């Protein structure tokens, strides 16, 4: 469709309605064609899911590690300050591990509620290709 801007402006009022219906027709056409393609080739989200799972595993691992590291660091600093080596290092190492586990649990809860929310939303919209 080759038209200059002025031409289009002139025609806009006259052709506005038919333009809209044409666009709608094209949209539904495209939607149908997309649906066909999707039916022919079901989405292989296995790789995607695996990548996501690896991301989650990495996230959880860093959280656990960060707890232990920070706990150990605090204990080490307190030890060298109060000259109680290695009592506080050991105590805070364990406390840090506890904090790490707490972090892991919190992020797991958050992921769970996120996943539940996403599922509910997709059920509400209810028009996934699988349900057809």
């Amino acid at each position: 469709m080759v038209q200059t801007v002025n031409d289009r402006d002139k025609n806009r009022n006259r052709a506005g309605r038919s333009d809209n219906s044409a666009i709608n027709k094209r949209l539904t056409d495209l939607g149908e064609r997309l649906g066909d393609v999707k039916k022919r080739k079901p989405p292989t989200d296995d790789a995607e899911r695996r990548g996501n799972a690896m991301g989650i595993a990495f996230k959880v691992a860093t959280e656990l590690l960060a707890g232990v590291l920070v706990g150990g660091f605090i204990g080490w600093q307190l030890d060298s300050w109060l000259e109680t080596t290695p009592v506080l290092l050991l105590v805070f190492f364990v406390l840090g591990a506890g904090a790490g586990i707490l972090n892991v649990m919190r992020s797991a809860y958050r992921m769970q509620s996120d996943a539940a929310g996403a599922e509910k939303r997709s059920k509400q919209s209810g028009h996934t290709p699988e349900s057809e």
Partner: protein
Amino acid sequence: MPDPMHQFEIKRHLDLELFGIDVSFTNSALFMVLAIAAISVLTIWGMRGRALVPTRTQSVAEISYEFVAGMVRDNVGTAGLKYFPFVFTVFMFVLFLNMLGMIPYSFTVTSHIIVTFAMALAIFIGVTVIGFINHGIGFLKFFVPSGVPVLLLPLLVVIEVISYLTRPVSLSVRLFANMMAGHTMLKVFGAFVVGLGLIGGWAPLAFMVAFTGLEILVAFLQAYVFAILTCIYLNDAIHMHH
């Protein structure tokens, strides 16, 4: 085999010293400046038309704006929109640093833990200050879990405080480790392509093509995670619940 860690080396482009502190202009600084310039081009030059029907650049700028605005609204609520400029800056900066790092021969600033840790620490301190401004001394209640026997309380408060202090560490380590591991992998497999030559080099080359795609995804995802965790921390500071 070439050294896969060579790409992370800091090189000085301009020797500078200020009050006895080494503030040389390095390749790391250069790529930070490039990222800022690219973001400015996108948001200022791209939005110059302010057209109702956007050009391509304008729509990219608008999409990134709406993306971050939606993220802040979903995770912090409307009270958080006050801090939108900060979250937008953090997101765009990390995203552009990661993406610039994907260009061959460029330098990935976010693969240095000192950079990510400094950013995470700035976010951590800022969010803590926001918490104290909003709730005063009552923000300390954030560290006291509810519904616990008094006997256990001292132990749990210490654990909560340590858990709070781990935030900058896990935030920075996640970004840094992802970027560094990815770029090292790319380099190692690149060396395999050369090492195996014309006969055997095709398999690692095919892998590298796929892995580069994954790395671009990771570059985006890590910027997203960095920004969304900033939002979650902001939410804790404003609304005070886990």
